[in-house]
């Protein structure tokens, strides 16, 4: 049993009744990390001294000045910059890098009174689906330490699933929040592109990246998204749209809701257990008054190729800034400036990052641009139109988050294309820019499965309403991995 069995509102009530202090809550996170992280390996850097000092100060703040997330501990993915706290993107090229400002989301966490516990492991520069591409350590799935937690936000999902922290932030470019949330049995939301400021998120693919929350239940997730959303003058791609109260949308009422279920999401390549768990979930939603019909997103199968061309192209440009000059790792014993660039990048980047920089540089180079890059941008339009058409007649789209549950560490390392196939059900959502969530919807061979609920642009409220109604009618989110109880807490 840990304090992190409780939701934010339950914890707030305990704090209000003086059964618990914010300092106790912060200490609980570090106690859990000390007991569990040797196995789970979710955290890269800890912010212990500052966090404990901050907690003590916050215990003095009057109740009237506290919001729903005040004093809540949170872990932050290591591609989100935190002033004075090492930020590496799990890459050797940023080893020892201490940011000189906070990302907008980190500022917003502070304004909400949340306490940053530490930085979370990931695939290097968010390129990967297993967190095996970290230059520092391989995060393990708390449900089975021989399996991957998914990626690239593997540390963010694993830390919440292990009960080390009740909240974390991840980022999602092609599924990097939803896929690990699914693998680890937690709730992960990729908001609409533009909903959350990307200022201070180290850029991978700028037209696809979004920051989003990972939690153990839907309500906490809605609270956190509300706190980090909004237009930001430091991010010209953040959208100037109203941020509704997502928590108010959690009415439990889905009567008359129209669900589209793409036949492509229950077709070849998707495992039986994933399919069955989705059909079971649809029955639950039907019993609550929703209706569903089969629909088609005919260009889904082209999503993977489109994504790898576009994301790699954008990455090859974004990662040009890592040159060893102004920050991070710098190669030694080189003669010329050109060699300094080349050696720094060759020694500083891992293989997957190099592979994508090479692919992107190739796709953008003279003679390839029209055939690969422009072609992929055109197919992106077709994929986006698929979603637009379905959303003319349906409120949400539902399918599995991933074709299979978490695989074993080392199982898919040999062939990049096999690893990429993990993301076939999440990638189209990024290409269309729409929001999507993964919520726990069952187990297969003891490993969690995720239900993906996709909504219209800027309609996270409906997604949360459906996810919450489903969650309240089921108990999968209450399950915890065996090591949860094993902690000496």
């Amino acid at each position: 049993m840990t304090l992190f069995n409780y939701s934010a509102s339950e914890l707030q009530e305990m704090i209000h009744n003086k059964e618990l202090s914010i300092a106790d809550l912060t200490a609980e996170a570090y106690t859990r990390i000390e007991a569990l992280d040797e196995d789970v390996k979710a955290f890269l850097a800890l912010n212990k001294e500052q966090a404990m000092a901050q907690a003590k100060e916050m215990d003095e703040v009057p109740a009237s000045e506290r919001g729903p997330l005040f004093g809540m501990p949170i872990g932050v993915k290591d591609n989100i910059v935190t002033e004075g706290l090492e930020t590496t993107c799990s890459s050797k090229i940023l080893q020892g890098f201490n940011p000189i400002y906070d990302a907008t989301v980190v500022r917003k966490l502070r304004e909400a009174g949340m306490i940053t516990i530490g930085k979370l492991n990931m695939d290097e520069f968010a390129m990967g689906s297993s967190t095996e591409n970290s230059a520092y350590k391989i995060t393990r799935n708390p449900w089975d330490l021989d399996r991957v937690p998914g990626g690239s936000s593997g540390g963010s999902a694993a830390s919440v699933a292990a009960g080390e922290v009740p909240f974390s932030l991840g980022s999602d470019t092609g599924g990097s929040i939803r896929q690990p949330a699914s693998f680890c049995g937690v709730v992960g939301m990729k908001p609409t592109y533009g909903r959350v400021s990307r200022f201070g998120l180290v850029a991978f693919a700028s037209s696809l990246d979004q920051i989003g929350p990972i939690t153990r239940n839907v309500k906490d997730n809605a609270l956190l998204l509300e706190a980090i959303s909004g237009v930001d003058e430091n991010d010209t791609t953040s959208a100037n749209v109203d941020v509704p109260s997502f928590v108010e949308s959690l009415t439990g009422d889905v009567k008359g809701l129209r669900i589209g279920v793409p036949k492509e999401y229950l077709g070849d390549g998707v495992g039986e257990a994933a399919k069955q768990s989705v059909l079971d979930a649809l029955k639950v939603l039907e019993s609550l008054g929703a209706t569903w019909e089969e629909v088609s997103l005919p260009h889904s199968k082209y999503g993977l190729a489109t994504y790898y061309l576009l994301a790699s192209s954008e990455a090859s440009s974004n990662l040009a800034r890592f040159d060893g000059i102004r920050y991070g790792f710098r190669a030694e014993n080189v003669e010329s400036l050109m060699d300094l660039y080349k050696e720094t990048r060759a020694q500083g980047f891992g293989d997957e990052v190099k592979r994508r920089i090479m692919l992107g540089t190739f796709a953008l180079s003279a003679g390839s641009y029209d055939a690969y890059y422009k072609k992929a941008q055109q197919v992106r339009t077709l994929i986006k139109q698929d979603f637009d058409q379905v959303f003319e007649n349906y409120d949400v789209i539902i399918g599995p988050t991933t074709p299979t549950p978490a695989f074993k560490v080392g199982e898919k390392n040999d062939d990049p294309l096999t690893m990429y196939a993990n993301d076939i059900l999440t990638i189209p959502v990024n290409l269309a820019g729409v929001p999507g969530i993964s919520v726990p919807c069952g187990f297969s061979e003891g490993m969690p499965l995720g239900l993906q609920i996709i909504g219209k642009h800027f309609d996270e409220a409906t997604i949360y309403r459906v996810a919450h109604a489903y969650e309240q009618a089921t108990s999968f989110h209450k399950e915890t991995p065996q090591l949860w109880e094993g902690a000496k807490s």
Partner: protein
Amino acid sequence: MANISKEEVKHVAHLARLAITDEEAEMFAGQLAAITNFAEQLNELDTTNVVPTTHVLPLVNVLREDKAVPGLDREKMMKNVREQEAGQVKVPSILD
């Protein structure tokens, strides 16, 4: 099937400012060929007259007021610079 030669890989590596060994060039040649062959499936689609999507939001020319605002502190900005001299970033010589 598109083939990518070791020489092409080395050219791309130069454009990307990555030092690359012969063995790596060989490995990337195979992997890039596999990935680009996989991407050839996009040619099944007729995209004549399809407008490319660079961005999903209907945003154009987001500008702020043309007014000077303070930037980051210079000393802070030098904090992560590995080699520096007299407040300048030091790099290897760029002229022979």
